[in-house]
């Protein structure tokens, strides 16, 4: 707090951002569905990065020396764990508010993360490159998938990986992810997802391939209402993830 007070940001704004940060990071709050969803993704992402770069997950900071980009980082729910694991993290979000919130929270957590209010396109055009690019719940919101994935792909270093998580364009996804999650359960605000903007796995794979990336694995993430838990599965009808690699030189 005291540090923020010394900057030119006015105190009311800081107050607002810290309230928002508390909201983002409250596992029982508005972002509860994301907190429920995050552990299964986190485990998969951690294991894949460790395998690809031959890191020991039992080491204190296994991702030391890896440069990672988290596109659409929001409040930093994935950026912070990656930074704790030792990665040099750039968190990008088009929303300046999200970035302020994420900055505030990472400072509270004592983590160093390079948060930037910018877009993947701008980062790519600036020539930034990364060992790992995380692209979680973003492609369903962009207008030109091929261009977006091209730009993201350009930032992946040879031998590096990109992980994309999104929602399939199926009737089941319409029923569960839009009608179910937004209207019935009200997990997400109405209008979060537009059906026509959802992306099918083969469309995503085509875009990845166009960007020079090879799909390594594709898997579904499904919700078990009895256990109130998300888990990995082979069912990619609703939520799914794609792991793609850029061949080494």
């Amino acid at each position, binding site marked *: 707090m005291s540090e923020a007070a010394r900057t030119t940001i006015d105190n009311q704004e800081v107050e607002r951002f810290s309230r928002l940060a508390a909201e983002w990071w409250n596992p029982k709050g508005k972002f509860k569905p994301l907190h429920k969803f995050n552990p299964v993704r986190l485990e998969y992402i951690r294991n894949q990065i460790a395998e690809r770069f031959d890191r020991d997950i039992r080491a204190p900071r296994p991702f030391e020396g890896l440069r990672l980009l988290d596109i659409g980082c929001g409040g930093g729910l994935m950026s912070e*764990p990656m930074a704790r694991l030792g990665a040099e993290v750039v968190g990008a979000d088009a929303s300046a508010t999200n970035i302020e919130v994420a900055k505030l929270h990472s400072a509270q957590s004592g983590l160093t993360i390079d948060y930037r209010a910018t877009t993947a396109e701008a980062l790519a055009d600036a020539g930034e490159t990364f060992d790992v690019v995380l692209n979680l719940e973003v492609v369903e919101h962009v207008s030109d998938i091929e261009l977006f994935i091209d730009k993201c792909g350009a930032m992946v270093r040879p031998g590096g990986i990109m992980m994309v998580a999104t929602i399939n364009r199926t009737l089941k996804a319409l029923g569960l992810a839009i009608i179910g999650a937004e209207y019935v359960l009200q997990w997400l605000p109405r209008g979060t997802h537009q059906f026509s903007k959802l992306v099918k796995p083969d469309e995503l794979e085509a875009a990845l391939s166009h960007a020079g990336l090879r799909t390594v694995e594709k898997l579904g993430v499904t919700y078990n209402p009895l256990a109130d838990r998300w888990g990995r599965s082979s069912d990619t009808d609703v939520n799914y993830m794609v792991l793609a690699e850029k061949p080494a030189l």
Partner: protein
Amino acid sequence: MARRARTIDAPLGTGAGDASAENGAADALPLKADILVAGGNYVGMATALGLKQARPNLEVFVADQAPKGASARDGRASAIAAAACRMLKSLGVWDEIAPQAQAITEMVVTDSRRTDPIRPVFLTFDGAVGPGEPFAHMVPNGPMNGALRAKAEEAGVRFIDGVGVDSFDTAENGVSVRLADGRALETRLLVAADGVKSRLRDQAGIKTVRWDYGQSGIVCTVRHSRPHEGRAEEHFLPAGPFAILPLKADEKGHRSSIVWTEKKEDANRLVEADELLFEVELEERFGLKLGEIRVDGKAKAWPLSLTLARDFVKPRFALVGDAAHGIHPIAGQGLNLGFKDAAALAEVIVEADRHGRDIGALDVLENYQRWRRWDTFQLGASTDVLNRLFSNDFGPLRTLRDVGLGIVDRLPRVKGFFIGQAAGLSTDAPRLLRGERI
């Protein structure tokens, strides 16, 4: 508010807090911890040690108001189920304890009036869960605590002796703890292992459910002229269970530990009575199989109750051991449940840290709560039922329970299940309890 107790031994290897400072300790820079365990009993120490061994990068503190060495002088003994024994092995302290541990190689359960000349035996088993692995051991608390302490220090756990936690404030990113000597400590997670009357649990606003039995457990050590051969006995007498648990013989000869349940007022009367009178009463229940008996030291009576915390966790706060569940000692499961807490909490935190997650986050800690709360409730409830079922002399009920025990005795698989449960070897056991490292 804070009491000053600077003369108390409070050594700290390094760090900002300087215990020897004549003044201004309260104003010094706060100590920095990742995890502070409040309570230095075996459950608190096992939690700290399990965490530190798996994640040396975490700064782990243990604070206890008792002076250094107090827990190593604890004269009581505990029944350690096979699972807890495996845990002590994986923590690397069992070899130290083993010479003083008595294996329970046979277990006999009877249901009788104390005047019955011969007590019909309804349940017996030779107490092995596997080749060479007895289902339980009797272990003296003192050496067990001493071994845990030494190992924890060796692993780099930092102890604050003679100073308890005075109060704490939980914020978004950490807990600000005020120690009883006025020093401040910042931690990401506070673990309360401060016993059944946990003050920290009350400060965290966690409510409890409590059953009082109106009974007390008389605990004492008995010397006897003949060897017990590793045999444990539990007699369900009308006033409550009477257990004989074999202890390792020492230079003064054979001995066993007694846990003897009576109505509270009878128990108080007995322990305050003349030694000779006490021994007469004891002999009537103990029997003559082990020859002449003599009480070693003074018998003590402990009121029996079942206390369960409604929640085991809050943001950046977790309960372990008796602070979460003080159970009736009838099934001898208090320590074993506590070790299971320690193993489960350590595993949950280690996993979270290996995923780069915030170790104090509520959704992380809830994994521990989900794992432990149901199990605890089940065991608490079943020991309660067991006690209510057996602590009476109502004819039809006696017949029913005897038939029940008889059936259990004749069905090897059912018996195996009960023994496995008593040994703590269920399938969802945390890694440390399976004898693995986290």
